[in-house]
């Protein structure tokens, strides 16, 4: 009997290969495979019935799926832009503070320290139509004469969810943009002053181009985050009322674990991942371009 002698590099890398295969590759292939089957959690034998494009066809013709898809894109667009603007404003203000800036920077990170589930509960309470802070405040100030059904009306509920998202994650933008502000060289800003720029023009033509790479990094990070949004929505509205705040991943979670239709859920999951990848690639290309514009290599 001759023993197969493996080359040493392979032996050394093997543990890593095995671990990666076990925790990443196998689940990935399994879920990909199951997305081609009518796999139902309560009927394991369904895992062996391959029906190639069926789940994908079903998803792509399902109005609920497209509604959730569109709503996810909408949430992503609105939340990211709002967070960017607020984060930019916050960073600019904090960068002007001369005393206690450290303290402010630390305080700015507080929202990131809470679990999204807790944030969801807190905002569910804030927007509660009977005992919530918002309605009480509006009514005490005489701005509303009756309770506004924040979490019941579909549009208002989405608005409430956006508020919660923005509250937790504006600091991601603020912190990255602040880092960008610290990194800006002073010379071009002084040159801009001498060249006749007003403070706004200096910001628009010099500061902002320098910040764009940082903004795109934040966008890339947050787009992944929002595209997989689940917890806050699950807690605040559970995708309701009547699916009007349903996002991709709440839909997928419901399909997979409540309806037990795991094959179909996996198929939708793969489409959702494509969406995430698309956004990441988009922002990454933007980042590369912004860096190239600044002459920061390719």
């Amino acid at each position, binding site marked *: 009997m001759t023993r197969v002698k493996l080359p040493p590099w392979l032996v050394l890398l093997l543990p890593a290969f095995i671990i990666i295969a076990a925790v990443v590759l196998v689940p990935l292939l399994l879920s990909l495979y199951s997305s081609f089957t009518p796999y139902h959690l309560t009927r394991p034998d369904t895992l062996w019935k391959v029906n190639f494009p069926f789940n994908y066809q079903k998803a792509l013709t399902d109005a609920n799926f497209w509604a959730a898809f569109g709503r996810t894109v909408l949430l992503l667009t609105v939340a990211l832009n709002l967070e960017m603007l607020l984060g930019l404003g916050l960073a600019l203000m904090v960068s002007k503070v001369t005393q206690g800036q450290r303290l402010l920077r630390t305080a700015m990170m507080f929202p990131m320290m809470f679990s999204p589930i807790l944030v969801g509960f807190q905002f569910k309470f804030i927007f509660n139509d009977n005992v919530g802070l918002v309605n009480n405040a509006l009514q005490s100030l005489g701005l509303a004469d009756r309770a506004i059904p924040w979490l019941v009306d579909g549009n208002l509920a989405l608005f409430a969810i956006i508020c919660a998202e923005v509250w937790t994650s504006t600091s991601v933008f603020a912190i990255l943009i602040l880092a960008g502000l610290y990194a800006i*060289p002073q*010379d071009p800003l002084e040159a801009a002053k*001498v*060249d006749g*720029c007003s403070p706004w023009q200096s910001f628009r033509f*010099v500061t902002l181009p320098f910040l764009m790479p940082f903004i795109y990094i934040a966008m890339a990070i947050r787009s992944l985050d929002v595209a997989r949004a689940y917890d806050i929505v699950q807690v605040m509205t559970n995708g309701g009322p009547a699916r009007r705040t349903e996002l991709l991943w709440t839909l997928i979670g419901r399909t997979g674990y409540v309806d037990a239709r795991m094959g179909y859920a996996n198929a939708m999951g793969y489409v959702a991942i494509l969406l995430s990848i698309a956004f990441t690639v988009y922002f990454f290309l933007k980042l590369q371009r912004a860096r190239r514009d*600044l*002459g920061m290599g390719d």
Partner: protein
Amino acid sequence: MAQVHLRNVVKRYGALDVVHSISLDIADGEFVVLVGPSGCGKSTTLRMVAGLEEISDGQVVIGDRVVNDLPPRDRNISMVFQNYALYPHMTVRENLGFSLKIARRPQAQIDAAVDEAAAILALTPLLDRKPGALSGGQRQRVAMGRAIVRHPDVFLFDEPLSNLDAKLRTQMRVEIKKLHQKVGSTVIYVTHDQVEAMTLADRIVIMRDGHIVQVGTPLEVFEDPANSFVATFIGSPPMNLLPGTVQGGRVVLADGTAVPVPPGLHVADGRRVHLGIRADNIMPEGHSLPPTAHMAHVDMPVTLTEPLGTETLLFATLAGAEVQAKMLNPRPVTPGERLRFGIALDKCHLFDADSGVSLRM
């Protein structure tokens, strides 16, 4: 076109004064160079004129306006920075035209001004590049171009050549001088390099520790330094300073060597002084300029020679101090050789040993 006046201008950082009440009048079209060692407050002074630094006290006047409270954009100045300070995300063309775009000039006018500046500075083939793709000298020219497109009243330069290699520096120096002759604007130019100061300036302002030490044409400050600091700062090699005491119309050095007090100077006996002799005015016999009426002679051992071609720089020792002398029509000199040197006394200076003030005034 404008004059610039500094009236008792002070710059204070907290309790620290870095510019002490300086006053200076600069004529329209004049090329003034602020020169002095690093940290003496040249940049700070220039930046107060530019409006990039607040003026703690006193007045800065450009043209006939007090500009203390005007932002840079209302002062009609342009500035060339030491690190060029180009906009990295704009092409050379956009960099050059930026100030005109901000001033909302019509595009045709911007294009014309940019093309003109590019032609003057030989930047035309580079117009569509970004600063990242330019060499140091090219960036420097873009920075200058950006300054000239606006036809400002005053040009401010802050050590614009200090990041270039020696050859390029000499070349750009000539370019700057030509540019000034062509444009004729008032220029305030900051440098720590006395050669740049001497070659460029209509008038040199020598600064030290936040004070103006002397103002004058390059020849004036070279020939009549107000004190020993200026004497050693301006001119290369620096003026030799030999400590001594005046006795009976002679300066007696530490080892007893006596040299007559330079003609025209009357100094009381016992005063401690520094005798200042430039290398050009102390030469070995037979290798010197024709002797003048007032010559003195000393014997010195040579310790080191630096041949420069048409002349050799000799390092010798006199009364324990190092003296640099020039040797014309040089011949080889071996270290340790004693030579007899002639000193042109009428070109020598005496400075008070304590205050450093020239006794010629």
